[in-house]
């Protein structure tokens, strides 16, 4: 909490999965590449390409400064 934090907006495409639960996990994994997911949603699905279009935002905590 003493370290600076920033919030970032992320837009991504995630492969559709067989179940919604698997899609949920895949989205979280994708967003975690950018930070801690705070809020996200699938905004559309490209049915032909079987891709979910996802928008979300993540929290990024700055690394401790090196001495």
């Amino acid at each position: 909490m003493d370290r600076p934090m920033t919030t970032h907006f992320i837009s991504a495409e995630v492969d559709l999965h067989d179940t919604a639960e698997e899609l949920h996990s895949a989205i979280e994994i994708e967003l975690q590449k950018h930070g801690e997911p705070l809020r996200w949603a699938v905004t559309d699905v490209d049915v032909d390409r079987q891709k979910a279009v996802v928008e979300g935002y993540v929290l990024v905590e700055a690394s401790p400064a090196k001495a």
Partner: protein
Amino acid sequence: VNPRPLTVVLIVPTGVGASIGGFAGDALPVARAIAQISDTLITHPNVLNGAQLYWPIPNALYVEGYALDKFAAGCWGLQPVHQNRIGLILDAGIEPDLQLRHLQAVDAARATLGLNITDCVLTDRPLQVELRISESGASWGTIGNPDSLLRAAEKLIKQARVEAIAVVARFPDDEGSLALENYRRGKGVDPLAGAEAVISHLVVRTFKIPCAHAPALSALPLDPHLSPRSAAEEIGYTFLPCVLAGLGKAPQLVAPENQQHNQLSITADQVDAVVIPATACGGSAILSLSGRSSVQIIAVGDNKTQMQATPEKLGIKALQVNSYLEAIGVLVAKRAGISPASLGADISSLRRLSD
């Protein structure tokens, strides 16, 4: 034998331009109606908050969006309370007169509603909220100093032992913008809503405590063409009373290991139905709940949003209805143990499974 209680989740996602519930607490009538035929209604601040206006619904649980996502995923349970001790965070970026307006709103809630609001903290830096609209048309925003927000919350929790937190952040006055003009006409997307969700999500995620947000804004000039859907935000100086009323009885958020010791806590496996705009099925809570066979997802067609995430596109099994009136009929049928299909003119033939 006690019948199984009917537990319903009502979601109208924030900041996606929902034609019902995308403005000033204008899904509250829907919540009131659904609560009448539910034993427990679980819904969130965007549905219940009408700035100066709110309605106490005894069987409704006021659950912030991040907590609702965790609840739906089975990570957190909801523990009803009699009353929460509430703390207030004021953004240091709010002008002194506007701060005073909010402190007076808190005093009014203490004196007139009997709420237990005990302590107030000013953030150590301005939160610096900025507003954005995404490619999909949803509103969102960034906070320049999220660490300052979290330090203020930590102080309230550790020093004042508060059980719920109301945050008031200074939002940019957007006067003259097309987005605000549309919003006041009951059209388009609430430009503030996405950033509000970032603020409350940050606090709930970090401290697992009920939290809700009210923006601090300068009063707007009188508009004779104001939409009824937006009017609740223009009848006072702050948006805070509904937040304080909601947090006063918001359920505590409990981890699974603690739920076993408390039979009153509500968990995702008790949910019977979730009501959602048909184009906004792509959120975390719906994807989680759709994996539970006992949950009936009811997708409402005439609550339009900027999203395009329908149940069919996502492969989610849902019952599509046109309106909330129809959704309420489905819930009545479900409660009575009647298949909704048997209330229509055409009843399909029995399906014969192949060997």
